[in-house]
């Protein structure tokens, strides 16, 4: 029986409009056989979470270039906890200085992919860390 494809929501939270990275990763995940839903720009954290629930995704990926990744991720993880969505894999990409990576991981963000990460690393990480592998 064919397994269900991995479903990923790629989201651009906050006011930052730089979406080259998000779109490029969306292309790459799709080419790797995943189903990708891209939210578009200027999303609030609650709207991202509700789209994740509606679309029943396995992965939520945030792309953040503005430097506001710490406050945004903190907000997201609170809501994830409240909504009991801890089974979803949460990953973040963008302009992320290395000193912030442990802070994000402590919050429960499993994967952090600073700009320039290879597609193959992102794809392998998602495959290894989702239940529907």
């Amino acid at each position, binding site marked *: 029986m064919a397994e269900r494809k991995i479903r990923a929501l790629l989201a*651009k939270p*906050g*006011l*930052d*409009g*730089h*979406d*080259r990275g998000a*779109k*490029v990763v*969306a*292309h*790459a995940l*799709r080419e790797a056989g995943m189903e*990708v839903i*891209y939210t*578009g*720009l*200027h999303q*609030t954290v609650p709207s991202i979470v509700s789209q994740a629930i509606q679309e029943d995704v396995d992965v939520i990926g945030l792309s953040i270039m*503005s*430097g*506001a990744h710490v*406050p*945004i991720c903190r907000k997201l993880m609170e809501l994830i906890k409240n909504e009991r969505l801890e089974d979803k894999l949460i990953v973040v990409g963008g*302009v992320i*200085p*290395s*000193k912030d990576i442990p802070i994000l991981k402590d919050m429960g963000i499993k994967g952090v992919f*600073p*700009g*320039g990460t*290879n*597609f*193959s690393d992102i794809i392998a990480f998602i495959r290894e860390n989702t239940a529907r592998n």
Partner: protein
Amino acid sequence: MGVATYIKNEKDAIEKVILQSGIEVKPAYTPEDLKRVGFDYHKDLGDPGEFPFTRSLYPLGYRSRNWTTRQYTGFGTPEETNERFKLMISHGQTGLNVAFDLPTQMGYDSDDPLAEGEVGRVGMAVDSLKDFEIAFKDIQLNRIGVGLTINAVASVMLAMYQSVAEKFGYKRTEISATPQNDILKEIVGRGAWIYPVEPAVRLIGDTIEYAMRELPRCNPVSVCGYHIRESGCTPAQEISYAFMIAFAYIDNVVARGYKAEDFVGRFSFNLNVYGNLWETVAKFRAARKLWARLLREKYNVQNKKALFLRGIFGGGGSGMTKQQPENNIVRGAYYALAAALSGAQTTALCSFDEAYTIPTERAALISLRTFQILMDEIGLRDTVDPLAGSYFIETLTKEMEEKILEEMEKIEKVGGMVEAVASGYVQREVARQAYEYEKKLQEGKVTKVGVNKYTEGVDMEVELHEYNEKWAQLQIQRLRELKKTRDNKAVNQALKALEKAATNQENVMPYLVDCCKCYATVGEMANVFRDVFGEYREPGIF
């Protein structure tokens, strides 16, 4: 980014060089190539300062006008921005280029819930005229040109700039501001959009019309191929999209009964310098020439100065890498060289720490010194258009011209730029190019030093410009005090009048100036437009 694809072969170290715009580079060029492309000195080049301005807009190039350097500056509070402005001016910078934070760019006040965590982060927070009064204190606004990097609410910020200048006692006829004011490129490539495409373009028409009558030294629009290139398009597409966008704005104003000749001379361009050196130089030379020619052919513009492709050619941030960040100082120097060989009038560089953050003081100063070394030490001012006549450069310039025209034709076929952006056609094309490029980079088909080749070495941690949470608190406090102390009745009246003008297709600019002068906030003015115009929805592009 933006280099060529090199395919290796054992006989020749490089078998094939294909530039990003799709042009193949031969191992050697001769007079035969000039014949092949039909090169003609008088038709294709002309003397410097003569139509079609391929070589230079002015007969003496940098010998009569040194270039203007305009590093992107502005962060945190207006007080800090003011200090940085003064510092850069004292070091010899001749123009200012103001960075605004994201809430300001998106038309939200600092106390808006959507602004949380973003106030003062990537630029200066501006809520009202009070902030401009602080930011521009003790700066001679009649002597310095100011770029305002803002788009969706550029009309508001231009009115704000006029208001601060008048408040300081300058005449509006003597100030020189260049708001970026290019909403189509925001929708395609930078993402700071608010309103739907048509009313957004109308606001740009309003600023152009108003500047033509009231602000003769202002450049109301800076058409940005730059950001579309940053988003992934090729150099040829960058120029063709920029021109098609400019035509959309021209058409909006022409439809109001004006002649292009009367306003197009105040247009400026913001174009990108990175990638292959030769392709860059050929791109700018071809662009100057095509712009002049197309304005003549399409809009019958005859006045020589109105045919100038003026603007800022700036070093692209996408070229900068997070890996081995000091290499970016070297990259910046080569981009500046490319800009100089291309005859850039005004220029700016992304600083070496730009892949992480807005530039630190040290990094911004290194960028400024880079330009000064080129002009004052190395001899870039000695003669105009030094590469002219090169078999290679002239052939490539002709080939780039053809590529740019091809790309313009594709946009015309889908109904022009407004339609191509509204339907998501351009966004799809740019995203596809970005993906293709990224794949080549990861497969090692294009080289990025320190990223996919010569990666040995220590990744330095750069000193970062830290975000300070206190900025937001200060800014919100100031805003609350303002709302208590200003004449709220006058503010309400001014906002009502603005709403009426926006609804009645009247030019909104005089009403925005009235709003600014009684201390209406950016958020209040932007919300008037939100109510009247609605908000833009992204078309699905996947």
